């Protein structure tokens, strides 16, 4: 037979377990992001800021302890292109088509375009900062992300859902724009 004391003790233990589970749940869920809708006239863009950290970012082809996505590599390529990957579990926008990681790519800039070389230099500077993050010389790098074009609107918060595993650094006319406010060239 179990006495009242035992019941009380069991209830306290269950309560503690539930509290831990609740707190862990809160900790695991990424906070809701501010997603700004921007219409360029040619396309609609869904923009958000996101803080890349060593815990939520994978440097494909460089990080030794993760399987590389085929073709993905954290290297600086022509036109200022490069890519990193974000752990799906740490990203606040749902991506049901993806398994574990999202590819965050810096779009290409034509070096022959007006101000092209300057824009590429800006992208290379961001690459250098991310390389410092990779080497743990920086703790976090906030970046502006464009969820378009692989995104669709949803009724549930945060109001959008990814339809593929690709997202992009915000690029306006070949230039990386480090904010989600309206930007005119």
């Amino acid at each position, binding site marked *: 037979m179990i006495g009242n004391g035992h019941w009380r003790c069991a209830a306290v233990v269950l309560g503690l377990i539930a509290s831990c589970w609740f707190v862990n749940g809160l900790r695991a869920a990424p906070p809701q992001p501010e997603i700004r809708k921007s219409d360029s006239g040619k396309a609609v863009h869904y923009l958000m800021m996101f803080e890349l950290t060593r815990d939520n970012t994978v440097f494909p082809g460089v990080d030794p302890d993760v399987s590389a996505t*085929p*073709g*993905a590599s954290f290297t600086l*390529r022509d036109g200022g*292109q490069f890519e990193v990957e974000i752990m799906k579990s740490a990203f606040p926008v749902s991506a049901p088509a993806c398994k574990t990681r999202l590819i965050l*790519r810096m779009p290409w800039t*034509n070096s022959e375009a007006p101000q092209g070389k300057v824009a590429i230099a800006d992208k290379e500077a961001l690459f250098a900062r991310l390389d410092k993050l990779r080497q743990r010389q920086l703790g976090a790098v906030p970046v502006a992300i464009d969820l378009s*074009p692989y995104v669709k609107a949803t009724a549930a918060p945060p109001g959008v859902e990814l339809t593929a*595993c690709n997202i992009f650094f915000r*690029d306006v006319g070949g230039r990386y724009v480090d904010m989600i406010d309206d930007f005119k060239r």
Partner: protein
Amino acid sequence: MALNPTIFANTVIAPVLQQIGLFSPAAQQLLLGTAIQESGLTARQQRAGGPALGLYQMEPNTANDIWNNFLKYRQPLAKKIESLLSSPTASKVQDLQNNDRYATAMARAHYARAPMPLPQFNDIPAMAAYWKQYYNTPLGAGSPAEFIASWNKTMGVGAVQAAKQ
């Protein structure tokens, strides 16, 4: 196993471009270079589970946009491209993946939307830049340097020089 590029260019690309009325040597070369770069003339489903399909790795959304915002207003061309479907009721998505003649026509239609004229025949760097700007687009993972490397690897570095003589 990869298709033979010369045979593909002469038995698929050229006849399709002639059939839809958009043939030129430069167009034939650009499409061959596109297929070589995009798929190595082998992959029909995008690696890593992406949405791109067929030898030209065109995404269904891109194809839909070509139909809805370009071919819709060019009915003679649209009818010619529709005639390349494997059957009148064929799925355009499945044909994009498995019907190389239809996929070739769609890739040509994609380039036909570009505001700039096609590059000169045999100017591979210009072809590479044109492919990057209008086909792969700045959002795509490829680069002009990769296009040129893929071309040289498949066709041989001396192929263009020989053709120019």
